[in-house]
């Protein structure tokens, strides 16, 4: 077990194994997202209340799921980095943050656009949208803090601490915002919480969610590999690897 963890922690080992894993996740992501999109856009029946505008759910919900999951993944990576000093964990956390912020933005944008046909306005202080907006600020804070340090080690540790503090606060923020929303707006019509969605409606949603998760894993593997090259450029194994590629090109 320990040997495995430390092996996983070695950038060289990770660089090798991620090269093998990456294509599978890209393929899964492409297959799932294309299938889910076609199904959700063209084949799923229209909603009896919202008509075709409900099809926004197939991008809104996966993005919102991913936005929250990425923050948790980032905090867990931060914890692994702080406890076991595994650098790959911090590299992964560093590349996850922008994707998480992008997903939060997608969830916010699709929610706002969905609001026009549903509520007749671009923005409602709906509980889900409000929590998403706060999550976006949390992401921006982590990204900005990492960028503010000149020493990479300090930046990594500071970002890890902030991600952990944030992840403890996310459920608290979520519950207090939910509570605040029900107090001020007696639950009129929330975007996605509805009783018993028929199978042909939620199955494409499940496929899209899985597709988004595969995309996240594939992209994180890819960008972590780049981050490894960037940080380990002076290491022997990277230079050997590059030399090998240069020789091959001749």
């Amino acid at each position, binding site marked *: 077990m320990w040997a495995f963890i430390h092996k996983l922690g070695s950038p060289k080992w990770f660089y090798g194994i991620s090269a093998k894993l990456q294509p599978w996740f890209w393929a899964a992501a492409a297959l799932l997202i294309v299938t889910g999109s076609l199904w959700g856009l063209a084949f799923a029946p229209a909603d009896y209340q919202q008509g075709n505008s409900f099809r926004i759910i197939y991008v809104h919900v996966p993005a919102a799921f991913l936005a929250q999951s990425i923050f948790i993944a980032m905090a867990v990576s931060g914890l692994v980095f702080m406890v076991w000093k595994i650098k790959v964990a911090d590299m992964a956390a560093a590349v996850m943050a922008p994707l998480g912020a992008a997903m939060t933005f997608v969830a916010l944008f699709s929610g706002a656009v969905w609001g026009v046909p549903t509520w007749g306005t671009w923005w409602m202080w709906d509980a889900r949208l409000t929590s998403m907006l706060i999550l976006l600020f949390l992401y921006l804070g982590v990204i900005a803090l990492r960028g503010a340090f000149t020493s990479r080690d300090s930046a990594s540790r500071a970002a890890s601490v902030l991600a952990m503090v944030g992840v403890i606060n996310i459920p608290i923020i979520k519950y*207090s915002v939910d509570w605040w929303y029900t107090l001020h707006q007696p639950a009129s019509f929330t975007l996605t919480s509805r009783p018993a969605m028929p199978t042909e409606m939620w199955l494409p949603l499940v496929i899209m969610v899985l597709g988004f998760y595969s995309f996240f894993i594939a992209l994180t593997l890819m960008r972590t590999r780049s981050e490894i090259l960037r940080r380990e450029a002076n290491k022997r194994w990277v230079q050997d690897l590059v030399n090998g590629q240069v020789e091959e090109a001749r």
Partner: protein
Amino acid sequence: MHSSSQSSETNQQVLAVPLREHKGGLMTAVKATLMRDLTLMLRRRGEVLNPLVFFALVITLFPIAISPDPELLAVIAPGLLWVAALLAALLSLDSLFRSDYDDGSLEQLLLAPQPLVALSLAKVAVHWLLTGLPLALMAPILGIILALPAGSYAVLALSLALGTASLSLIGAIGAALTVGLARGGVLLSLLVLPLYIPVLIFGAGAVQAAILGDGVSAHLAILGALLAASLMLAPWAIAASLRISING
């Protein structure tokens, strides 16, 4: 960690002296930190008064910007008072560790044999005593000029006293993370404000409930729970962040 191999030598020298003088003097060290910070802060009255003046000024701006109509003001007063107090507390955060960082006494605190968690908690306690508590005591006076309905003044002060303690604890994490940065001020508010939202919701909610005549005990209980949670968790994060800022 490994970047300061030089300071680890001095580290041991400093360590040796207080250990011999009083063994495990945790309470002594906490008390000394409390007294030192109180004395220092009281000597710089400006820093204590600035957040209070800011609070009063911001509250003055709202009727001018919105309307002097007392009925309208009464509706929005709880939210305005809470937001303004929150911003005033935020304003004072930057100075929490700044001067100690500049004159090197923060480094001494890290090298002390007593746990940094307890010492940083003492520093935060002083910060609350000199910003949060005065803000809470001052809020009812500003409530009067905002035509805050009667019967909610005590709740306003109490909710602010409870809430600003959480704000000081959470804010100290951000202050500790940014104390080593040259331009940490704006970053500090970006880090800290999103984390303030639960306290704001229940703090302003308590005052609103008091105006409506609902029970306020639930709100105050949740504010107390938030304070208990931050008391348990925040000092560890503050200590870890201070170590990062000093050793980095």
